[in-house]
């Protein structure tokens, strides 16, 4: 096996490449140092896509969850529609969107939002349904109107469940962004795919994967910390 120094060096003979996996190390500092720029750009794209997708999904899904809760006749259609969307494989969804939206970040974003939607809607609905009837009765008796009840009683009490939904959605979204690589907009997924396709270059695939998992964990921790900040009462109850 001749010496091969970086991600940009490709073996001349592709068919010979498939016969044997090159014995690159699984992890290489020199790869990281030499490709810091590419890694940084992919990481930034990954973070941007995740953040935007989560923002749009939360803004759409939480009101949708409230609608599904308030208007009983809407519950089944909203859950069924988002369930169908969730069953469609990510690659197929991107394939359905790409011919119309092009090979753009928008296509990836629309796909990501659709998947995150179901998770957050479910979390919101579960949380709102868990609000005890007595609490609602008491608020009713104290003269809370429909909107005040929602904002000051129901949503705060549903917050832990909404946050769980957001955390699961965030972790799934980080992982799902990688599939955007087929559209050329997959953040770290682009590095994974090109690492595999160009020369089965292990250090690139492993580094991108590690960054991806780390980003998912960071999102999870950030949201759980934010959640504790805005629901201080749950901490007291736990003690």
């Amino acid at each position: 096996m001749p010496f091969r120094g970086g991600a940009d060096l490709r073996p001349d003979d592709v068919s010979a490449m498939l016969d044997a996996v090159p014995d690159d190390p699984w992890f290489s500092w020199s790869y990281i140092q030499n490709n810091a720029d590419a890694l940084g750009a992919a990481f930034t794209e990954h973070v941007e896509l995740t953040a935007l997708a989560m923002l749009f999904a939360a803004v759409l899904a939480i009101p949708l969850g409230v609608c599904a809760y308030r208007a009983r006749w809407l519950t089944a259609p909203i859950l069924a529609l988002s369930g169908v969307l969730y069953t469609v494989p990510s690659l197929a969804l991107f394939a359905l969107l790409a011919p119309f939206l092009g090979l753009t970040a928008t296509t990836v974003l629309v796909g990501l939002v659709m998947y995150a939607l179901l998770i957050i809607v479910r979390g919101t609905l579960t949380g709102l349904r868990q609000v005890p009837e007595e609490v609602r009765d008491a608020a009713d008796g104290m003269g809370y109107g429909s909107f005040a009840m929602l904002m000051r009683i129901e949503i705060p009490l549903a917050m832990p469940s909404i946050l769980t939904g957001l955390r699961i959605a965030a972790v799934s979204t980080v992982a799902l962004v990688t599939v955007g690589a087929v559209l050329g907009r997959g953040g770290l997924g682009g590095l994974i795919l090109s690492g595999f396709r160009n020369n089965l270059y292990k250090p690139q695939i492993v580094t991108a994967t590690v960054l991806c998992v780390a980003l998912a964990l960071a999102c999870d921790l950030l949201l759980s910390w934010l959640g504790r900040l805005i629901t201080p009462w749950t901490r007291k109850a736990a003690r």
Partner: protein
Amino acid sequence: MNDVISQAVTWLNDPLNWTNPGGVFDRLIEHLWLSALAVLLGCLIAWPLGIWVGHTGRGGGLTVGVSNVTRAIPTLALLSLLPLTALGFGAPSVVPALAVFAIPPLLATAYNGVRDADPDARDAAYGMGLSGRQVLWRVELPLAVPQLASGFRTASVQVVATATLAALVNGGGLGLIISQGFGLGMSVGGGQILAGGVLVAIVALVIEGLLAIAEKLLTPRSLRPAR
């Protein structure tokens, strides 16, 4: 826009696209075969473990931990990394990679199903002198069937969906129609991309529907949730 749709319709209407070697039928069989093996492997690992943990009641946090960890691992990463290990390319690495994503729902439902068996029924069985193993086989497992079936459905649908990504790393399956379309470029392959997307989506939804029916049939009337 209408161009792409008519291209996709043309692609779907060409019988050769279905029957050629590497056509839709070949890919469908490949896809279902890979998925079935992955679900089988997942069941072989997750069910005994989940049932055992549920029966003994030890290590319940395991099920939550496993699903949290696997959710953070990108499917694409696992599908690209496993072929580079001793497993090699093709089914030997694709099947375990897919099985990893089948395990969390299988494990969680097996654990919960056994764990949530009616305590009165369990007590009665012990009172009748059944051993721990007999309680597991004759009381807890039958009561866990609805949960096991629902986990099986979730896992299968997940694996069928994930298997489309195998195409990106030379793993085969229906996703190959889509990824070959992307390889041709949007102007030439647009119709094929759309046609592939429609096919894969339909296959996933049909499998979901069939398994939902199977799940209903497997659940005895007395164990069905009251609606």
